[in-house]
């Protein structure tokens, strides 16, 4: 017997809506749980003071600085390389066996566990290049780690720009680069920003690769060759070593708020850009 469409429609709405609701509920629960446990410990002193007694007392100021610097450095290295490669692959090469191999390779790289990148960073940057456990080693390692993500998302964003725009631009006597700069890149920007935010998120939340390459020194870095500690690493050490649950949750709360802020800022900037371009 056939179920009347009225009921299948109701069932679909219930199931799909339920799935959305469940996802949201889990997300809200996690954030609320961490904030509830952590926020009471987040005071001005906690944000602005140096940690003391391995993090049992004091604050996390140098760790916040480390959390800002390390992903920023990774992004500064990975963004031009990644977007540049994506533009080259998408706009300047024709689809051949080689580009397919390159694309398959980047897909594989994007799926490699971060600890493998950490191990590579430890051997290559820390060891062979003698950069030591430092901001620089960590930044380079994280940059390599997020490069595949940035390349692939940027490439998808570039491909989503209608081919007709390229044809029109070309027919008016634009060189390939003029077309890329004036038409393709601005239109692919939202997609590229999404990829960059994914990469940034991975950098901020990374622990294994950071411990291997940037070290765990919880002091203010004075140069690119100093070791830094990020909030994710701090949280891991405090909780893992049973140093201080209170401080661990405090750090987690700050981390969540920081990620939220970064995302909001990025989307606000992107929308401001889009509004300015096409009103």
């Amino acid at each position, binding site marked *: 017997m056939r179920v009347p469409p009225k009921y299948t429609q109701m069932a679909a709405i219930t199931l799909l809506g339920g799935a959305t609701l469940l996802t949201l509920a889990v997300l809200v629960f996690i954030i609320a749980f961490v904030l509830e446990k952590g926020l009471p410990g987040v005071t001005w002193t906690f944000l602005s003071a140096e940690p003391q007694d391995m993090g049992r007392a004091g604050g996390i100021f140098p760790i916040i600085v480390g959390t800002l610097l390390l992903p920023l450095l990774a992004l500064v290295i990975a963004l031009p390389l990644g977007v540049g490669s994506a533009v080259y692959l998408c706009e300047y090469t*024709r689809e051949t066996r080689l580009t397919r191999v390159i694309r398959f390779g980047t897909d594989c790289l994007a799926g490699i566990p971060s600890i493998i990148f950490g191990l590579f960073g430890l051997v290559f940057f820390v060891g062979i290049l003698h950069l030591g456990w430092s901001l620089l080693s960590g930044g380079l390692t994280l940059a390599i780690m997020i490069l595949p993500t940035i390349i692939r998302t940027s490439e998808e964003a570039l491909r989503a720009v*209608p081919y*007709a725009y390229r*044809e*029109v631009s070309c*027919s008016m006597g*634009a060189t390939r680069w003029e077309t890329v700069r004036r038409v393709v890149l*601005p239109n692919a920007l939202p997609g590229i920003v999404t990829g960059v935010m994914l990469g940034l998120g991975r950098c901020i939340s990374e622990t294994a690769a950071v411990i291997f390459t940037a070290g765990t020194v919880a002091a203010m870095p004075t140069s690119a060759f100093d070791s830094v500690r990020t909030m994710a690493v701090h949280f891991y050490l405090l909780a893992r070593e049973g140093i201080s649950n209170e401080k661990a949750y405090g750090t987690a709360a700050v981390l969540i708020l920081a990620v939220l802020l970064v995302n909001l800022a990025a989307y606000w900037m992107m929308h401001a850009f889009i509004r300015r371009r*096409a009103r």
Partner: protein
Amino acid sequence: MHAPLPTTDAKITAHEFCLFFGKIQALRNITLDVRRNSILGIIGPSGSGKTSFLRAINRLNDLHPACHTEGLLQLDQTDIYHPQCDPVALRKRIGMVFALPIPLPLNIYENVVYGPRLGHHCPPRAELDMLVERSLRAAFLWDEVKDRLHTSGLRLSGGQQQRLCLARVLAMQAEVILLDEPCSGLDPISTAKIEEALTTLKAQHTIVLVTNNTKQAARVADETAFFLMGELVEHGPTQKLFTVPDDPRTNDYVTGRFG
């Protein structure tokens, strides 16, 4: 088939011109002249090579990886496919309006100045402002958009978008304008406006108009060429082609008996 035209009067000359996409031959031995400051209408059923011929003139077929040509295609007696011919410079002299109106995702003003702004030399703002007004007026669009030049070109209606595309080409100050079924998606009033613009524009430009609408060719073209399966069947003054064509296939097509 048609009376040979004096060569000095020809803006575009094709001689035994062939076009291939890989192993597929899209155009076979096309020989025809387009007179300076005239409108050539190209008619023919889908797949007859009209658009391929149009896109051969501004070398837009080059974007296709396996495209190559044989024979001769000249603009002002210079071979377009000569290895030393720079396609980018060539395309600055030849504007194109596509079948679907495709404004770039920019505002109206930016759409019109897109062409002039390309390359090293960018004209000063005042000159661009003048160019925008002149081009939009010539495309019969100025009165409708003069108060909202900074809104997105994508917000315009289909007919307005296509006139914006025409204005964009006019602002390039190109010598040749190629139109690929420019009115296929437009209402009769927008079509009339575009046709009116074309008849004025031929004073300064040489125009090649591909159209699926034989009546449109009859209305605006000085000469008409009939393409069929990659071959040029007949080419001559529009009046003659539509009333006393030499080839029975042309007769069948213009009277609507096939195609």
